């Protein structure tokens, strides 16, 4: 393999890793606060892509406006999802909430099939994203470079919110100790809404960029990326935002490199995430960045 081809794969891996990272953060934040695998998160991601698609094709809005609208609506949808499917079960066993998440995912997918139709749709791509750049003999589609840049900006803003604002401090407090935070006067409900909102914004950004890179939309498109990104979050150490980003990149780069270095294994690409998950769970269940917890007897 020549060096320039390797660089191409590397860029692809980094942009796929970026997308995974954006989605993984949503899982890790929700899990950190509610101890819930939000199975519907992948469907929120799908919804973001479809909203952008319809804004561009049915309402003929410019791409940037469509993207902003999609992000805003997805954010609202994420908050509604939590209010309607998870909040009523706040005091139920964790298994009930997980089942509700599976049910919500099921409902969103079926609604999407009815509303959007089951046939694949082609995501329109503005020329700015499809330019072929030639950098030192390596030709790269511009979107592959834009994705990591946008991701970096999103992560920077997220990091600022979590670590340097009041609401971020409250989020960290709630994820450390739910009950104590409530007793300290933190409005836990609005923090949870904020968390779902933030996660959904990131999912929408990820979904739109996913559409730009892999422009085929189907109602079940969120399922596999969703599961993989939850795995990325577990690999990084669930509840840890930095871990989710690292997990996302390991997964993205890993998948691309497997195909690049041994094409014979390309059929097993989708299994990579799951194999990685099993290895991590057996070797270090708390994930790369996580801490061990012991149940009190």
């Amino acid at each position, binding site marked *: 393999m020549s060096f320039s081809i390797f660089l191409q794969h590397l860029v692809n891996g980094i942009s796929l890793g970026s997308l995974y990272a954006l989605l993984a953060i949503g899982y890790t934040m929700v899990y950190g606060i509610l101890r819930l695998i939000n199975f519907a998160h992948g469907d929120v991601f799908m919804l973001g892509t479809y909203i952008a698609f319809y804004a561009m094709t049915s309402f003929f809005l410019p791409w940037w406006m469509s993207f902003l609208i999609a992000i805003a609506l997805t954010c609202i949808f994420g908050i509604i999802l939590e209010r309607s499917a998870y909040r009523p079960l706040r005091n139920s066993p964790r*298994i009930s909430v*997980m089942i509700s998440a599976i049910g919500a995912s099921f409902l969103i997918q*079926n609604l999407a099939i009815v509303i959007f139709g*089951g046939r694949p749709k082609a995501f329109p791509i503005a020329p700015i994203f499809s330019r072929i750049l030639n950098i030192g003999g390596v030709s790269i589609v511009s979107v592959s470079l834009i994705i990591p840049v946008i991701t970096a900006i999103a992560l920077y803003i997220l990091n600022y919110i979590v670590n340097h604002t009041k609401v971020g401090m409250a989020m960290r407090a709630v994820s450390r100790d739910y009950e104590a935070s409530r007793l300290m006067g933190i409005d836990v409900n609005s923090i949870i809404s904020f968390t779902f909102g933030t996660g959904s914004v990131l999912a929408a950004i990820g979904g739109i960029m996913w559409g730009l890179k892999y422009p085929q939309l189907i109602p079940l498109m969120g399922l596999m990326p969703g599961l993989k990104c939850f795995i990325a979050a577990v690999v990084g150490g669930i509840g840890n935002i930095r871990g989710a980003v690292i997990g996302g990149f390991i997964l993205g780069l890993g998948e691309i490199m497997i195909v690049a270095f041994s094409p014979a294994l390309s059929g097993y690409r*989708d*299994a990579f995430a*799951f*194999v990685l998950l*099993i290895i991590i769970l057996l070797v270090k269940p708390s994930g790369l960045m996580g801490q061990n917890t012991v149940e009190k007897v």
Partner: protein
Amino acid sequence: MNKKNTLTLISIIAFIVLLFILNINLGIYQMRIFNLCGIYVILALSLNLINGFVGLFSLGHAGFMAVGAYTCALLTMSREMKEMNFFLEPIVPWLKNVQVPFPLALIVAGIMAAIAGALIGAPVLRLRDDYLAIATLGFSEIIRVIFTNTQSITNGALGIKGLPSIGITGKTWEVVIWTWGIALLTIIVMVLLINSSYGRAFKAIREDEIAAEAMGINLFKHKMMAFIIGSFFAGIGGALLGHLIGTIDPRMFFIVLTFNIVLIVVLGGIGSITGSVISAVVVTIAMEVLRVLDGDIIIGGYMIKGIPGMRMVVFSVLLMMVILFYQRGLMGTKEFSWDWILNRKKKTVKS
């Protein structure tokens, strides 16, 4: 023999008679749905054993079903059928010439699924709650990916077509005996198991692992037992499903299949055999009845245009309502008992 056992025996015989009557009177389409009900009873019960009685939230069912379905298909198909299917890459020689009778293939299918269960259970059953869920889901997905890629064994993504009909004679009247016969057998095994000392130990693990271990219950051993039994029946169910439909391919065993079964169990009540049985039958029939929604409906001369996929939306809305407002499902952890009927009779006699 006491009164309750007699009643049970009479009901079983009555049910078998009913099967024969239905077999004669129902059309092919209705019979097919009825058979599907039986298969879903098997699948729901096997999942309920693991998830409802031992409290292990496993999401690996589709994987075990796939193992069972492929094993049974490859063992029962004739050499000619296999050669027709495997046109992209020829089937491995040791599988090509094997052909065994259906009952034997079915048992082997169950055993293979049980072995898969044991191999997967050994590492993952030490994990807790949602980690277990995601790990079992992962293994089920790995099985699917492997089956998609082992072209010369499973025919890869093309799948296998032309599976022989369920049974020894290949006649349609035999199918229901197998589906509901095995469903009945599964119900009996589950009832006997749950009401044994081992069943109590399973429930103890569900209620409180730490206390169960302190009572001398070997957690790992008991979890493995339930997991292996559950996978065995999942394999049998998967095999029957494959042969009923007549075609199998890896996409059929996607995670969504596991979710469907989980939802059936939830509707019936996690931890109730009665609930699972009723729910499996009701949901399977309801899915067919709701098909009306997908087609055009004519009400008083007006035609409402059908929307494909509408029945799944209605179904998932109903499901979410149960999950949110009626968490314990139809039965909770309660079971049907002859006492209900006997006591009611006594009460009426008194009054």
